[in-house]
Each structure stands twice: as C-alpha cells, then as structure tokens.
C-alpha cells in the first residue's frame, strides 16, 4: 500500500532580497523592507513529503533515521545559521523562499530511499511555499 510520509525540519538563516538587475531605487521599490542592506532573518521550517509502498517487514515508507541523517548532513548543516546570500546556490538568484524551495527539492532528490513528492518551506508562520518539481532548472543553476 502506498503511503506518504512527511517530516518537518527547522533552521534559522539571514538573507536579503536584492538583484543586480535592478538599480537601488527599483530594488527598494520591489523588495521593500526585505531589501535592507544589512539583511534580516527567519526561522525556516522545511516539510518534505516522500511516498512509496509501505515495506511489509518494517512498516515504513523509508527509515526515518536515514532521512533525518540525510537532512541533517545535506540541508540543515548547509543552511543553519548562514546568510543565504553568501551560499553558492544564491550566487546568481535572489534568496526568496521560492528559490530556496527549489534548491531544497533539488537536494532531497539525492535521497533515493523513497519517491520525493514535494517540499514545503515556511519562511514565517504566515508565508509558505511548495515545490513539487516541474520545469526543473539544472543543478547549480538556481
């Protein structure tokens, strides 16, 4: 039987929404207070959903310890207490949570024990973003 497993992880990071494609006035107009040159930060929540047949021997879609280990090494250790704008993945793109969702989806594609369905990222308790693949940019290009 096919079931869906969702796990939530948390990290805190800073960022600044800014693009070199705009001048200072347009950055301020488009990104508002998110364009503050000194940056600001959020407590992010990442919710990853995986699917698969429930293994008859373990009762699991995938082993949670394996998923947690993967998330710790590849997601949390990478983003925790960083300035997102300094990371390679945001060298050429704005560190919006839309782009962050796509990057985290790309990372979780490396976890092969179950099928990756969706990544849901909450920037604050009032803002959240979902990415379920599709129009997938090449790795490293986002």
């Amino acid at each position, binding site marked *: 039987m*096919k*079931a869906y497993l*969702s796990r*939530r992880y948390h990290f805190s990071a800073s960022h600044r929404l800014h693009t070199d494609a705009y001048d200072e006035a347009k950055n301020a107009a488009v990104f508002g207070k998110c364009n503050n040159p000194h940056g600001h930060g959020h407590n992010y929540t990442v919710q990853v959903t995986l699917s698969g047949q429930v293994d008859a021997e373990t*009762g699991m879609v995938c082993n949670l*310890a394996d998923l947690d280990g993967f998330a710790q090494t590849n997601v949390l250790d990478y983003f925790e207490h960083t300035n997102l704008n300094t990371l390679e993945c945001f060298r050429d793109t704005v560190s919006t949570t839309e782009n962050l969702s796509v990057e985290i989806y790309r990372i979780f594609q490396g976890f092969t024990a179950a099928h990756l369905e969706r990544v849901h990222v909450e920037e604050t308790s009032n803002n959240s973003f979902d990415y379920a693949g599709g129009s997938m940019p090449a790795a490293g290009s986002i």
Partner: protein
Amino acid sequence: MIFLTRKAEFSSAHFYWNDSWSAEENERVFGRCANRNGHGHNYTLEVTVSGNVDPTTGFVVDLKELKDILEREVVSVYDHRHLNLEVPEFRTAIPTTENIAIAIWQRLDDKIPNAKLHRVRVYEMPDLFADYYGER
C-alpha cells in the same frame, strides 16, 4: 465538491519490532523505537472527507456524526492503549505512523454516510506525519 477535515486526538504506547528478525537486527533498524517496554505519543488524527453540500442543511456531513464515528471506530480503540498489545491490527502489523494511517482508513472506509473518505493523516508528533489515500 467540498473537502471537510475533522481532527481527533489519542495518546497511545507502542514499540517497533519484527518477530522474524533477531534482537540485534530490530535494534539496528528501529533504534530506540525497538525498546520492548514501549514508549508513547500524543497522536493527532485528521480525517478528510469529500462530498457535495446538501442544499437543505449546508453540510457535507454532519460534524457531530463524524465526530461520533471517529470516537467509536478509532479513539475508543486506540486512546490510552498499548497499540502492539491491545489493538488487533497491530498484533501483526508494526504500529508505524504509516501503518496507523492505513489501519484507520480501513476502520473508517464505508462508515461515513453521504461522503467519501479522501485522506487519513496521522501526526505522531508535530514534525512527523503520514498520509494515506486508500492507494494500493
């Protein structure tokens, strides 16, 4: 078509153990969850049903009736129980969150009048949950 979701809560003990494996294998795969003395969680159940809004009542289902069904079929059986030892379906199936979601689906399927069971979501804790949509 409207989707309606009702929550319920239950608190239960469980452990993970596959009788066909050695103790070492169980501990390797299931870690702390293999402690045979059990441990427990406050589970949150979300049951989503779909259906058309009755033009007279404005309801998809009668919420009180749905609440009573969840109480009778699930909460009264699972709450303050040891799932492995006291709930029949977990004498054979390991009471993982995935299997609990499937078992609750099977308990509720065809028991909700005028609506179709759409999804069973079981939170073992706020950061871990499983969904089952009745898929084989």
